[in-house]
């Protein structure tokens, strides 16, 4: 075998959502990148819901897109239904959620990978990570070959020593009937701190066997605004989802069989996520509830398989049948795949830097579920950051760090490396301090300049971006100066809109700040410039909520002052006089990059932060 086939700049292990984004970022930035997967049939697999987006997660997808990632475009191209959630709850929390054709999603992503220059998609099972002098050197495969690269990105998902539980039956296994990565897991345990997590899925059924008259139909929004800033509006024929409810009969079945559920029999020891509870957890923890929602989600255009969202369970197969028989519409459901729970190894994220490189092994990056997260969006977000930083590592550049005040991606990574996680980590908008700024509509304003700077945003796209920003700015300025009102004709129109009359003239911006007045309605009072929908939306948010946004901006500036004060990597915290012992130990372990990050570590008190500040100043002065 020639060198060409064994030597790369970057090796990405795992072609799930994190691995795909990581490999694409590396290859698009010009690095020879090998992307390894167990099975070429399972690239970009969604082993859980065939769905992407939702609260917090939708912003992540937008951010990935704003940086130059693929997930948003892949969603837009393969969705079957989509809805904007939280439309009445405010600009910051509106979030798109789409149902996808699972196979189509995979096929398109695979094709993108296959056609990206510098990217080499390969089937192969990695059994060992090669490390030389605390530096990543390559990977060994089960087929006996060895691939070499100075950077390895691990994006192994839930496959590390994974075990499937179906009630009291358990066996080593992975999603979609695949095999666990047992040898690699053993190898990693020797190198890095490992914890064990679990997650679960519901049964898949044949959609022909359901009684739709007993369920509620859920339609999507049509047309639909896409995830990618480059997509625009999507108008396709969508498919509906369906909603039904569990009832007391269902819960009785669960109660009667609780001792056989892997989660409750003690067979599963890993920590599961609280936000994705199994039906047995729901019944045990919320006994007062007489019903829980179940969503029937179609898996694709060309399949009759359906996903029963809300019914994730570790109960045995025959109990699953009994369970469905109690639920309206699902009484005769044919189960095609059993629900299962899966336990897997993942890393304790404290071993990572904010760049997603491991602290102990240079050139080894990790992204996705291996870092203790859950969700396709969270995985992809880490993937693109790991990819960008892998390239910067190879180029000898400083890694990029996305701040908490800049993006959900920043919140995600900072939470992981600063606080660690005791359950699979899911993004929620409540985790962000500056939620009003971290909106879906302005993800491009927040991150596209960075994407351009690192090289993932083309000149053409960047030009379109700056033109859009210019349009927004100009329209905001126009609204702030354009006079309106004070005359009977306008007042008649205002009455029509349903807002109080104006006794004297104001600016259009002032009028728009009234909660009941929309940007589009300003068109009744005078001609609006011909602007794209996304620009109109952005203008509306900026003007309507200006006061709140300005306050948030001030808070962000205060926050950033602490983030900008960097802590040298080589501080010997244990010897630093004045730190409490707990603080010293935590700081030594986590090695925060900034004073701000240090202050967020539990156990680091304001007094400890003061000590660090004084230490920084002494260092600065003694350098002079």
């Amino acid at each position, binding site marked *: 075998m020639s060198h060409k086939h064994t030597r790369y700049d970057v090796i990405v292990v795992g072609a799930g959502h994190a691995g795909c984004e990581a490999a694409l970022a590396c290859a698009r930035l010009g690095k020879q990148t090998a992307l390894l997967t167990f099975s070429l049939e399972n690239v970009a697999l969604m082993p859980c819901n065939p769905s992407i987006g939702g609260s917090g997660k939708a912003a992540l997808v937008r951010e990935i897109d704003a940086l130059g990632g693929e997930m948003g475009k892949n969603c837009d191209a393969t969705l079957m239904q989509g809805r904007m959630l939280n439309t009445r*709850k*405010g600009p910051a929390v509106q979030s798109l959620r789409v149902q996808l054709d699972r196979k189509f999603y995979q096929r398109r992503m695979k094709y993108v990978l296959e056609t990206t220059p510098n990217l080499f998609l390969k089937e192969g099972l990695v059994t060992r990570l090669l490390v030389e002098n605390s530096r990543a050197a390559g990977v060994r495969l089960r087929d006996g070959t060895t691939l070499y690269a100075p950077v390895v990105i691990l994006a192994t998902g839930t496959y590390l020593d994974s075990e499937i539980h179906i009630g009291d039956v358990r066996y080593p296994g992975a999603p979609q009937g695949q095999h666990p990565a047992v040898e690699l897991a053993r190898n990693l345990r020797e190198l890095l701190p490992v914890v064990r997590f679990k997650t679960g899925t519901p049964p898949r059924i044949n959609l022909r066997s359901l009684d739709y008259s007993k369920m509620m139909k859920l339609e999507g929004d049509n047309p639909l605004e896409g995830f990618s800033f480059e997509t625009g509006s999507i108008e396709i024929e969508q498919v509906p989802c369906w909603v039904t409810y569990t009832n007391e009969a269902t819960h009785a079945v669960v109660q009667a069989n609780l001792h056989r559920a892997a989660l409750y029999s003690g067979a599963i020891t890993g920590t599961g996520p609280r936000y994705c509870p199994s039906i047995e957890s729901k019944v045990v923890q919320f006994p007062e509830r007489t019903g829980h929602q179940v969503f029937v989600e179609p898996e694709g255009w060309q399949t009759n398989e359906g996903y029963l969202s809300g019914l994730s369970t570790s109960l045995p197969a025959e109990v699953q049948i009994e369970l469905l028989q109690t639920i309206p519409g699902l009484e005769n459901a044919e189960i095609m795949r059993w629900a299962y729970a899966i336990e897997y190894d993942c890393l304790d994220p404290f071993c990572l830097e904010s760049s997603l490189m491991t602290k102990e092994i240079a050139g080894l990056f990790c992204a996705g579920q291996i870092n203790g997260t859950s969700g396709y969006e969270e995985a992809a977000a880490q993937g693109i950051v790991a990819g960008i930083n892998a390239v910067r590592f190879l180029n000898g550049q400083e890694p990029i760090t996305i701040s908490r005040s800049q993006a959900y991606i920043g919140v995600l990574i900072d939470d992981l490396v600063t606080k660690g996680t005791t359950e699979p980590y899911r993004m929620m908008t409540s985790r962000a301090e500056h939620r009003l700024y971290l909106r879906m509509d302005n993800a491009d304003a927040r991150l596209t300049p960075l994407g351009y700077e690192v090289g993932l945003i083309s000149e053409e796209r960047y030009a379109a971006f700056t033109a859009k920003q210019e349009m927004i700015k100009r329209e905001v300025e126009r609204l702030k100066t354009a006079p309106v009102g004070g005359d009977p004709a306008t007042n008649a129109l205002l009455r029509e809109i349903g807002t109080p009359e104006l006794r004297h003239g104001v600016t259009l911006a002032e009028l728009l700040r009234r909660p009941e007045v929309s940007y589009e309605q300003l068109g009744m009072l005078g001609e609006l410039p011909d602007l794209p929908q996304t620009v109109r939306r952005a203008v509306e948010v900026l003007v309507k909520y200006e006061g709140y946004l300005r306050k948030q901006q001030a808070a962000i500036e205060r926050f950033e002052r602490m983030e900008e004060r960097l802590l040298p990597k080589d501080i010997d915290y244990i010897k630093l006089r004045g730190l409490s012992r707990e603080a010293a130990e935590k700081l030594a372990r986590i090695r925060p990059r900034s004073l701000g990050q240090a202050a967020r570590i539990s156990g680091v008190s304001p007094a400890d932060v003061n000590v660090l500040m004084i230490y920084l100043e002494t260092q600065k002065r003694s350098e002079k």
Partner: protein
Amino acid sequence: MTDQTIAAIATALGEAGIGIVRLSGSTALDIADRIFVTRHGIRPSTLPGYSVRYGRVVDPVTNRTIDEAILLVMRAPRSYTGEDVVEFQCHGGVVVVQRVLEAALREGARLAEPGEFTKRAFLNGRIDLSQAEAVMDVVRSRTEASLAVAVDQLEGSLSRRIGAIREHLYDLVVRVEAVIDYPEDDIPEMEMDEMADVIREGIAELDRLIATADQGKVLREGLKAVITGKPNVGKSSLLNRLLDEQRALVTDIPGTTRDTIEEVLNLKGIPLRLIDTAGIRESVDLVERLGVERAVQLLKEADLIIHVLDGSVPLTSEDFQILARTKDKQRVIVINKSDLPRVWNLSDLPGDDLQGAKVVEISLLEGELDPLVDGIVELVTHGMIREGTSSHAIVTRARHKAALEHAKADLEQALATLEQGLPLDLISVGLQGALEHLGEITGETVRENVIERIFAQFCIGK
């Protein structure tokens, strides 16, 4: 320096001749402009460094004079901290200094962290590098001392009262956040009216808390100290001795009823309203007297009980009854007539009834009053305001009060947002802000608690 302007009381609280409130930071002079009026109307911000001016500190809201004071201006970088520094030298009473500090905080200064002036001096190059470790020690020890005080205070009623209001706000925030983060789960949305009610209640409760946390007010009105004891143990002499001893006799409070004597005196900077129950007719049997509504009421309302016992005569049931009746109160037990032979021991008093009381033996006829005065002061301040030590307790309270006020402002903002019909994510800014300010008092991380509670309260996720 872009850091916020900080303010603190720079002198030990108590009976010192002057009290200094110090401000440091870029807006120190602007704040001085708003709260200090010089005699000739010169704005402090127009003064050059090292200027001294006589004038009045005024409450910017009411425009009332708080105190006459001397203003000292030092300009960056030639000041202790290297920033613009303003000092107000006041008359020194706890009340006055506290109110001057509050005025500065209201006008935008932030209460200085312990040791922060020293820290800034160091960070701005005003303290030599060789002193870095000393600075570190100062910062650390002061922070820890103040933390200890904060913890002490938290065991008190403030944390309990914050507890109730916090719970209501958490319930609200958790519901709002759950609805936002889990839009597809069938979580019942809160009615706007219901939400407004909870916020209004929160504001009202915060108002009540601010009123009680307002030490200035408590101290202005004085702590109510009731002198009690059976007849002829020396209650009147106690009152007279205390009044004689203190220069700072203020006034008779008009309108008090004839059967009690009420005097205001200043005990080491702590104003005390001293009420002598001797005024209640003593010919009536004490037991019966305790049943008299007025006396019972007085004991109930008292912030402090001074119970006088006679060490030279045997204890009687009256003594024990008063002890039992007042055992939930802050008490100083004065064992008088120490010049005469003692006929009983401390151990003769019931231990249960004596818990937490400060016992002082004294001769009101000839002895020094110091132990009694110290005992009273220590009890009143929980030993936190001592001569020669820094003013942690006062400062911590000012911090709490500022946090309460910020929390209230945030709730008001949330309410205004809600009333304007603006969406949930904007309302939540104020709600979360309020919780975070309360969290500054209790030292908890609100964001994580909210997430914990969402999962504990709602069955969400698929």
